[in-house]
């Protein structure tokens, strides 16, 4: 039941905010903030309670679940369930929801109620994606989060927002429909074999597929997740959407929406189709490495700050793709770590860029420079998150990238070596960003105000989280580890295949 509350709280908060905004915008903001806090608290309670129930015995033993019939004609059930992996994602979602509400406290002045409704709907949709274990329900949430996200970009976005919003919607919808076909294919194949027509994840896990069917279905799923992740060459929606979205939209996009793609790869693609995934792993890992390098190189050549951060996301998510398809415990834990740290650090960077844009009216790095003197607090915070982004030891991103590379090394030394190049490029763009914006002579006579208390509070929370992740990652690794172990067990053959196939 607690899982339903996780979804209901943001939904109720969003609708309440929408109604209250008729009278007071401030009330709408407070209601969404409270909803986000309540959700975070609930997720926190789940985490604190969890250690006692972490003995996961595979297939069906979840930490918490609800399972109601929904559309019996198809064997569709409203089945939410939580394991360690979902739990971490839920925590990240709740935290970033809170941050997004706080970050749009001043920036959003038009149609405040509708904004918070959409924000809370996206959050609920994303939480649903992380919790659903019925494939139909999963697809339902997967598509559901698109609409409010579309509105967030289209209504409150910047200059070219209509184009960006439509592009985002079309890319994700097209790939999502391919996934729906794959889901249906799996449903009927499983149903014909066993007579048990079901969309239930744990029951579909043991479907016996011919190699061709498995490969085609796997590609259907992979298409949806690769677009969301995004993996090069399916990434072209991302720079546009991130750049045109309002700050909170960018935080949600980078921090959470991309993670749904990674989560889908770990949860569905490999366990459901271990054989096909093993065959496909070299291609996927190569895509990951290409993404790491390509994203980093493009980030280097941007002048628009938001585009720069967007391309660094492409690069960082390449590590996740690499780690997932390396498919050993180290790499998977690294991927999960990278997902969480990237959500925190990139979210923070988008908030800082948004703060700069609010103050200066531009995102053009070419017009900035020497801002440290005017805004020492913003400069300091930006330095911290730029260092996090380049993978400075002691922060969460380092742990993630290090583990991914370590795990990849076991399967493919060459790919691991090439991927390391991404870290070098990351150092260059992070330092370049600091240099262009905060150091050197000022190019325009700006006298912007420094970060205020609210913005500092957001930054400090995110920074603390990254430091904790970097210095003491064990609780997170443990929480993820049990769940990943169970998933690995379900997909056993792949681990052997990939490990055996490596040099």
């Amino acid at each position: 039941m607690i899982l339903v509350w996780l979804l209901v709280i943001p939904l109720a908060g969003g609708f309440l905010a929408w109604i209250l905004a008729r009278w007071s915008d401030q009330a709408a903001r407070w209601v969404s903030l409270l909803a986000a806090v309540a959700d975070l608290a609930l997720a926190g309670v789940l985490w604190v309670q969890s250690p006692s129930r972490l003995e996961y015995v595979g297939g069906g033993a979840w930490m918490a679940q609800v399972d109601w019939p929904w559309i019996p004609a198809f064997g569709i059930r409203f089945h939410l369930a939580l394991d360690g992996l979902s739990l971490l994602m839920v925590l990240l979602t709740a935290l970033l929801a809170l941050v997004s509400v706080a970050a749009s406290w001043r920036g959003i002045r038009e149609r405040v109620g509708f904004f918070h409704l959409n924000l809370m709907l996206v959050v609920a949709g994303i939480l649903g994606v992380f919790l659903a274990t019925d494939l139909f329900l999963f697809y339902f949430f997967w598509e559901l989060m698109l609409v409010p996200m579309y509105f967030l970009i289209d209504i409150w976005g910047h200059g070219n927002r209509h184009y960006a919003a439509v592009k985002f919607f079309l890319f994700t919808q097209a790939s999502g429909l391919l996934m729906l076909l794959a889901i249906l294919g799996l449903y009927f194949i499983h149903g014909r074999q066993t007579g048990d027509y079901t969309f239930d994840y744990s029951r579909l896990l043991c479907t016996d597929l011919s190699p061709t069917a498995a490969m085609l279905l796997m590609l259907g799923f992979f298409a949806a997740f690769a677009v969301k992740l995004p993996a090069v060459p399916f990434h072209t929606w991302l720079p546009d959407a991130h750049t045109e979205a309002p700050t909170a939209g960018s935080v949600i996009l980078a921090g959470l929406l991309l993670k749904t793609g990674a989560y889908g790869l770990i949860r569905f693609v490999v366990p459901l189709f271990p054989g096909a995934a093993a065959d496909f792993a070299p291609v996927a890992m190569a895509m990951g490495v290409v993404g790491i390098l390509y994203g980093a190189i493009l980030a280097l050549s941007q002048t628009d700050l938001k585009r720069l951060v967007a391309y660094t996301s492409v690069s960082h998510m390449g590590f996740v793709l690499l780690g997932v398809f390396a498919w050993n415990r180290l790499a998977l834990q690294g991927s999960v770590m990278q997902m969480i740290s990237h959500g925190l650090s990139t979210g923070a960077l988008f908030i800082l860029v948004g703060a700069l844009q609010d103050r200066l009216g531009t995102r053009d790095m070419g017009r900035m420079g020497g801002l440290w003197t005017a805004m020492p607090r913003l400069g300091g915070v930006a330095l911290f998150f730029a260092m996090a982004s380049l993978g400075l030891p002691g922060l969460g991103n380092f742990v993630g990238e290090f583990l991914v590379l370590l795990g990849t090394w076991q399967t493919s030394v060459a790919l691991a070596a090439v991927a390391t190049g991404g870290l070098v490029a990351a150092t260059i763009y992070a330092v370049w960003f600091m240099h262009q914006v905060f150091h050197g002579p000022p190019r325009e006579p700006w006298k912007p105000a420094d970060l205020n208390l609210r913005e500092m509070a957001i930054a400090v929370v995110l920074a603390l989280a990254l430091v904790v992740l970097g210095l003491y990652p064990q609780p997170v690794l443990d929480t993820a580890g049990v769940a990943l172990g169970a998933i690995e067990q379900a997909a056993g053959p792949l681990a052997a295949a990939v490990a055996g196939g490596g040099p």
Partner: protein
Amino acid sequence: MNPGDLTALAPLLVTGGAAVVVMLATPLARSHRLIALLALLGLAAGFGSLWLAWPMQARHVTPLLVVDHYALFYMGLVLAAAFIVAMLSFGYMHKRAVKRCEFYILLLAATLGAAVLAASAHFASFFLGLELLSVSLYALVAYQRTSPLGLEAGIKYLVLAGVSSAMLLFGMALVYATAGTMEFEVLARQSGGAAHYGPMMLGGIGLILAGVGFKLSLVPMHLWAPDVYQGAPAPVTAFIATVSKGAVFALLLRYFTSSGFHASETLTGALAAVAIASMAVGNLLALLQENLKRLLAYSSIAHMGYLLVALLASGSLAAAAVTYYLVAYFVTMLGSLGVVTVLSPPDREAEMLTDYRGLAWRRPWTAGVLTAMLLSLAGIPLTAGFVGKFYLLAAGVQSGLWYLVIVLVATSVVGLFFYLRVIVALYRRPEGEEGSPVVRPEGAAAGEPAYRSGRSAPPTREGAILGGLALAGLLVALLALGVYPAPLIRVIEAAVAFLP
């Protein structure tokens, strides 16, 4: 004919009776309110009488009609849709300088024709129902005689429907000459499987399908649709898009499944080609439209193509999939064209996309309804269209029609693009974009309102309330079907269980 037969026919009798009552009442009391009320009551009574007929066994009433759950379900759908159309029409007609009362007679007659189609088991009743529907529609399409576009649409519809009826009759004659019967069931038994059809039989069925394809506006018989959709009054457009197409599709589904057509590769191949062409042409041409009514016309061409995919699937899911999708399509099309109806000022139709720019900030609820309807047409979750599309894809995948399913997916992404274009227009910020023509709510129309000239009545509150109620009901239905479809699926499964 025994009392049981009469009970089974109750929905048809009540609807026909309502048409007569309205016709008799019109010369006595030319009150728009009274006539509209009578028509609404008649349709509601017809819908209510379904409960009389539902518990009965499926039965043939004369060789012409078969009343089973399938027929009753589609009658209910048609009657409910006509009820919504009548609700929407009241405010729309009240604003306009036309004779209003005759509209409802025609509406009831057309509905009766559609209901007959749903129950027909014989070429004769098929043709009777179709002509009753078409002849009423000729007049309804050209109801605004002062509008050149309306007249053009009426003539176009008349000529093309005439041609299609001729083809249909010729096809029936060929089939009758070959098989010696006009009853669907006997036809199915006698012909010994569609795989052995001779050229004459195939030609006959091909001509019948061409006639039916015209009604459904399937490519290449779709050319009338955009012009008629645009020229007809908005509520009539809603009627054509839903009741007329839905009833014909119900017949096609019954005919197709009962005669085992899917055994004939010639026919399924031809239908698959038509389906692909409809999906592609409908979605691609809709991209070019700046007129919402034309856009919806092309969209409905595409949706008929989607429905053909499920029809061709002919697995255990197919009939239920077609039926569910039709219900979702009815709700959605009525909703979108209902918004057009409600927004139309007295002197013209609110049909250009520029009319809708920034609507969300002027009339948030109306824009919200239209948004939901468009998202449903695109098949986005929480709406009926999502479950419908899921059903269609499931039926297609079940039968392994991969190439059709892939075309469906690819074209529906194109479809999403033009639905989003409308939504973008709805939510465009109004500031800095002055000078665009703006549709104001009724009563606030810019310039001299038409009713001042004494040719039409002043706008009424009832019209706005009825229209609002209709839209609200459709929105609730849309969301309910999208979130919890299980009850409707149970009813549909009972309804299609009679099909072989």
